[in-house]
């Protein structure tokens, strides 16, 4: 199946997109549930959990996106050029959304006044909804074949049926991942009520995904023929069916409150769909105008890119495992106000007369 170095890099790109969809997606989902958690009183506890669950890992999850961009422009320069020219507006809005989201989240944590927290929280939550929508819409637009090298920015490229459905599916998938992880986090933080709260929302979002997927199948039949065929036959179909199994398994596991396993199946479900989409596009990066081989950069660079990726895996992998393990074991906790106020003994002795 893999014929050359450019296919390897395409695989790396797909893996990075998958990692971002799962890691970043979970955080976007947390933001989504922050948005719909209700007023400041009713939503206080869910928001508290969201804050605590997200804070040690969200920056790391965000870096996957940078990885995706770097692999795109180094490995497939023409792809990068084409995507960013044709999908100008959704990607520009996604970039603004990323700023607002990160800033809103980081600043809310450090804000004490309720009014301020509300503003930052709203900014964080709304952009958590919009950013994945625009990213998804751009991906959906590529699948329709409306974009080819040389296409200039137009609304048509990303405001068609397939784009909208893909955008909504992306949001629903992030909400699903977020809810599953938050259910597990609720148990970790000993908040049984919140575990039930988020489990219910995980089921809801699974229902939403199912509905959207069925609509999507109908819409893409004519609108995105190539990808539609890829997803409904051969390896694409197998992966999609496996994803369905994983989703159902997640629902069952959540019912039994086996949250640790549910997290794995939820991630597997989303990852399988992303990989299925990637394989359905083969051999195209942009169906049906740009193949992997046509878009590939210089072979030397691609070989170096493989090396860089290997180093990244060797260096980053173990640390990533360490981070997630420390986090799930509760070894990572934010400094509280008391820690920062806590008297430095020397200063105290400073104020008293020296011996």
């Amino acid at each position: 199946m893999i014929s050359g170095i450019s296919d390897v890099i395409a695989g790396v790109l797909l893996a990075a997109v998958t990692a971002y969809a799962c890691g970043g997606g979970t955080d976007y989902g947390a933001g989504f549930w922050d948005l719909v958690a209700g007023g400041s009183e009713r939503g206080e506890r869910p928001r508290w959990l969201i804050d605590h669950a997200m804070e040690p890992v969200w920056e790391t999850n965000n870096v996957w996106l940078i990885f995706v961009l770097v692999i795109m422009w180094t490995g497939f320069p023409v792809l990068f050029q084409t995507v960013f020219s044709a999908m100008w507006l959704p990607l520009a809005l996604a970039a603004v959304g990323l700023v607002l989201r990160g800033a809103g989240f980081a600043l809310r944590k450090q804000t004490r006044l309720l009014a301020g927290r509300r503003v930052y929280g709203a900014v964080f939550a709304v952009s958590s909804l919009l950013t994945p929508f625009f990213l998804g819409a751009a991906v959906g637009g590529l699948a329709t074949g409306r974009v080819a090298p040389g296409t200039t920015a137009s609304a048509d490229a990303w405001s068609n049926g397939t784009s909208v459905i893909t955008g909504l599916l992306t949001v629903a998938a992030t909400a699903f991942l977020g809810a599953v992880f938050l259910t597990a986090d609720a148990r970790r933080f000993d908040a049984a009520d919140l575990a039930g709260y988020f489990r219910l929302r995980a089921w809801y979002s699974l229902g939403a995904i199912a509905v959207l997927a069925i609509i999507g199948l109908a819409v893409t039949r004519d609108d995105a023929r190539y990808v539609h065929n890829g997803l409904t036959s051969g390896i694409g179909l197998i992966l999609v069916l496996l994803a369905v199994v994983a989703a159902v398994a997640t629902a069952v596991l959540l019912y039994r409150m086996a949250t640790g396993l549910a997290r794995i199946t939820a991630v597997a479900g989303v990852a399988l769909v992303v990989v299925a989409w990637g394989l359905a596009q083969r051999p195209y990066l942009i169906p049906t105008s740009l193949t992997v081989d046509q878009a590939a950069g210089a072979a030397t660079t691609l070989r170096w890119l493989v090396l860089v990726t290997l180093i990244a895996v060797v260096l980053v992998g173990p640390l990533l495992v360490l981070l997630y393990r420390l986090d799930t074991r509760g070894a990572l906790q934010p400094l509280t106000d008391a820690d920062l106020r806590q008297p430095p003994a020397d200063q105290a002795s400073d104020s008293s007369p020296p011996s």
Partner: protein
Amino acid sequence: MNSAIGFLTEAPPQLLPARELMAFTLASHILLVPFGVALPAITLLMHHRGLRKGDAVALQLARRWSVVMAVQFAIGIVTGTVLSFEFGLLWPGMMGRWGDVFGLGFGVEAWAFFLEAILIAIYLYGWRRLKPWTHFWLGLPLPLAALMGAFGIIAANSWMNTPGGFTLDAGGNPVDVNVRQAVFTPMFGPEYWHFVAGVILTAGYVVAGVYAVGWLRGRRDRYHRLGFTVPFTVAAILTPVQFILGDSIARSVFHDQPVKFAAVEIVWNTDTHVAEYIFGRLNPDGTISGGLRIPQLDSILAGFSPDTEVTGLTTVPAGNRPTATEATIAHWAFDIMVIIGSLLVLLALWYGWCWLRRRDLPRSRWFFRCAAIAGAACLLTVECGWITTEVGRQPWIVYQNMRVAEAVTGTRASSLWAMFGIVVVVYVLVFGAFLTILLKMRTRWRIADEQLLDVSAAGPPEGDVPYGPRLTTAAGSTEATEATEVAAAPDHGTGRADGGER
């Protein structure tokens, strides 16, 4: 896409907004860069001191700095991500043609950044539950990861200045890519070390400046002394080093980018015995208005002899060199950077002199006034250095290989202006909120410290303190050491000195 030639017509209308947007977002992001790269190192230095000497004040400072780092890092991540997007949103032409030649540096940057994000998360959230030294050692690779990330970015930027590692085929497309040559271009070394020294000393002066202000306001306790001394010493040591590095990078530009050098020094005609202008304005006809003229000096600085021939702007056609206005901008940026750098050397010497003579901080309030503004001045030099290198390279985005106008997106100018407006509003709000929160933190901590001084007899409050009960025992032993080792280090005799001054 293959339009290497035939682009000499006037600039497309979207060029200006694209430039403004890039300039604005980069100018904003670059203010955070010194802290992203160097604040972890300075914090770890303080942290190490705290652990080694059992110094609770040092640990307290390190903890508070790490909280600041958390917010700053988050804002830095998002503003940095925007820049990655902008490569595609604004300059798709550059990435499409050259992405596979020079993009690999960013690949290195991406994984270094990855490491940094992971390590910083462990460091920031590890204070409470990890063992003290485990926590420190896990944080220690942070500065290395930061330097690695800077390596990638500077490799890309220096490639844009002195592109290499490829040959052009008949269609003007790069072939035969040699990655090693594309990464280690002539400007890479000078630019990298100049950058590294610059960001570390900037972070040092800014952090020290916070405590210099406190010192001027009469808060002369050990907390402020230590918070000032550690970062200021780091910065003061690097300042003269940076002076030499800065001088050497100017000479590298002279050799490798002569036209840029001509713009930075506003040299119109190639000549020997070229005069140096401090400020002054280059007119489109090649005359210079205003400015302080020092005969011979430019040739001497460029080649250590008045006979050195300096290439002038007129050696290349007008379309291949910065305009008179651009040259003036680069020239002013360069001069401001050099002047501030020289003043900082004096400040560092003042500090070093007092330290050698009396093992103590200077007593003059003027020293602390200067120290308080040194940080802001340094941030200004960071902006100036960046303006010098970017504006001096115009009209090229890839020096002598691709014009900025060829790289720009085809998106309509009106869309770009609208986006520019949105981004300015968003950035003003985000940076405003960021500063407000930093100031509020400072006030909160100061009030907490003042309350503490009033009730210092009451003893530490209950609850689980970072690193558990270790602190209290360590603090006890510190007092003992302090009593025996008077004046061994600048911080130790403080209690007494303060008592005397109050």
